[in-house]
């Protein structure tokens, strides 16, 4: 193999293409042979060959990159396999899982942080997305332009460069967000009160979540003892364990463009006649939204909820970029995937990491199944 990294990957890519073509041909020929032995007509044989030939890249990739890795990681999750050490691999049974669930405080922290993002962040994100979609649904001049502006953050989204810009804006002392908050509070006292109320409420909630994690609620008592924040207080976005998760929530809300588009599609699918006849009957805009639009939007809301919840389990980039080196506070915001990365690639504990990834997988499946079970209670399908 050439040592030049660029040449190396070009050669490997060419070999991969040859491998894919060869395995496609092989798979197609094998399938055709089986059909022939079963007595398929030449036409069926030909179609079988072509079908497997064209689908083979995915089938082979599924075996190599999904099925076999999942099998191996399931096996490793019951062992103490470490990639860096030469010690023999020992079967440890369920030990990794029991440690994770019962003893590992970092894993518990990641679960509780995800809970915070789900309980506080997801409703905010969905709410803003719905609000923007309703605004855009008024069909006025420039709608496309606004839609683009609201979707652009999704494209830029979790790029490191953009996250670093947020890091700059969220600086407690000189960051633009706090500077604007200070300026507005000084110029317009009611805003100052609003800001202080927000700070107080946010810190109490965050302290409760941190308390859930450690089992000690001394931060909560401290926050309550400190009482209503003074005039000079500003949010401590990336500086305090009480605020780290709120910063991630800000990023989630900023990137709500996909959800907005989904809601917009939902609003567009509502027949106009429903609104028109309700208007004739004298229903106000507010009533029409809650009685007509909202029930018909529930399938779209459900979709956003399922996808949003899975996404909040998987948040990695914001935590890496905003807090990676900031040891004392990173634990207040780690997600399951961040913890998985940390365990596997700074400690090389493959067995333990495998157990985490299987737990993540199982949790995602359980959450999705629960949501699908619950949907009958509140999701409206096809009333018109």
């Amino acid at each position, binding site marked *: 193999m050439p040592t030049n990294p660029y040449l190396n990957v070009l050669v490997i890519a060419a070999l991969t293409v040859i491998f894919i073509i060869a395995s496609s041909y092989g798979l197609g020929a094998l399938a055709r042979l089986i059909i022939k032995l079963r007595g398929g007509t030449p036409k069926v044989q030909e179609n079988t060959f072509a079908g497997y030939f064209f689908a083979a890249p995915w089938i082979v990739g599924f075996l190599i990159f999904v099925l076999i890795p999942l099998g191996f990681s399931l096996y490793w999750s019951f062992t103490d396999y470490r990639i860096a050490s030469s010690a023999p691999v020992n079967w440890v049974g369920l030990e990794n899982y029991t440690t994770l669930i019962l003893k590992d405080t970092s894993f518990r922290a990641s679960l509780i942080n995800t809970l915070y993002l789900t309980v506080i962040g997801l409703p905010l994100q969905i709410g803003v997305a719905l609000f923007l979609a309703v605004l855009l649904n008024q069909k006025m001049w420039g709608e496309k332009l*606004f839609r683009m502006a609201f979707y652009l953050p999704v494209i830029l989204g979790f790029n490191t460069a*953009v996250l670093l810009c947020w890091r700059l804006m969220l600086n407690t002392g000189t960051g633009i967000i706090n500077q604007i908050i200070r300026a507005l509070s000084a110029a317009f006292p009611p805003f100052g009160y609003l800001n202080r109320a927000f700070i107080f409420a946010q810190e109490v909630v965050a302290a409760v979540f941190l308390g859930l994690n450690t089992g000690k609620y001394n931060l909560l008592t401290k926050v309550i003892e400190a009482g209503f924040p003074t005039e000079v207080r500003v949010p401590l976005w990336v500086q305090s364990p009480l605020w780290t998760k709120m910063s991630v929530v800000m990023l989630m809300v900023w990137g709500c463009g996909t959800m907005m588009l989904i809601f917009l599609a939902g609003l567009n699918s509502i027949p106009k006649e429903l609104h028109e006849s309700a208007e004739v009957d004298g229903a106000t805009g507010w009533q029409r939204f809650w009685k007509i639009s909202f029930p018909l939007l529930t399938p779209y809301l459900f979709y956003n909820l399922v996808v949003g919840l899975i996404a909040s389990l998987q948040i990695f980039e914001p935590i890496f970029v905003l807090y990676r080196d900031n040891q004392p506070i990173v634990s207040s915001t780690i997600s399951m995937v961040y913890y998985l990365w940390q365990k596997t690639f700074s400690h090389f504990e493959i067995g333990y990491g495998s157990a985490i990834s299987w737990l993540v997988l199982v949790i995602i499946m359980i959450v999705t199944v629960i949501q699908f079970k619950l949907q009958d209670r509140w999701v409206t399908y096809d009333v018109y």
Partner: protein
Amino acid sequence: MKQYFYLIKSSVLYILLTGATVLMSFPLFWMISSSLKTLSETNSAGIVWIPDQPTLQAYLDIFHNTNFLRSYFNSVFYVTLSMFGTLISIAAVSYAFSRIEWPGRNFFFFLMLSTMMIPAQALIVPQYVFFNKLNWIGTFNPIVIPGYFAGGAAMIFLLRQSMAQIPKELDESAFVDGATHLQVWWEIILPLLKAPLATIATFLFVGLWNSLLTPLMYLQTIDLYTLPVYVSTLYNINQTTQPWPTIMTAAVLTTVPLIAVFFVAQRYILESVVISGLKG
């Protein structure tokens, strides 16, 4: 009276929408503005909306930073290489799932859709061990090669939907004339799908360009770093002052391709987000 009410309603609407647009685009504005500032302006205690004397010093400096330039080249190189392989394999697999009747098609199609449930991160540990065995750590291979196996079930689904809409008579008449599946796929079907293919290429581009976790895991040395990995090293918590103008200059240059691609392809992107989202 009614007209008056309408006027108020639409001006409130425009005020809200403009406000939301300003908020949503603010980080972008701030990134550009900060890249034109001096270090003392980025750390100033007062608000500097737009620097009095915009300086391009950070831009001039960064073009002498070989690490940055190389990471830019690395990103362009790996994204291009990975994107084309992925695109062609996705086009092939979509063809099998939409235009050929073969035994097992429904089974594999359902299997493919169900892989969308598996988070990519659940696979990173065993894949890391696998690539380690192949001696591929510290090369571009692990971030390029997996895509060649039609990575991305959502993208296959999206393309399959467009492909299934093409009338069947088109390929049937070609088969009567003696064409093979390969010819029909490459010469008849794909040229009809330029817009969906461009959309998928855009999604792949955005995903690869923003990707941080896998390049971070596999690239290891600074001369292989892609942009997101390199840019993340510019911010160093152990320094007392961060070189913000430099970081923001790197950020602007990193986001320019994304914004350019988005503006060119936005119409298709906004439509297909909904298709792939709702029916997936």
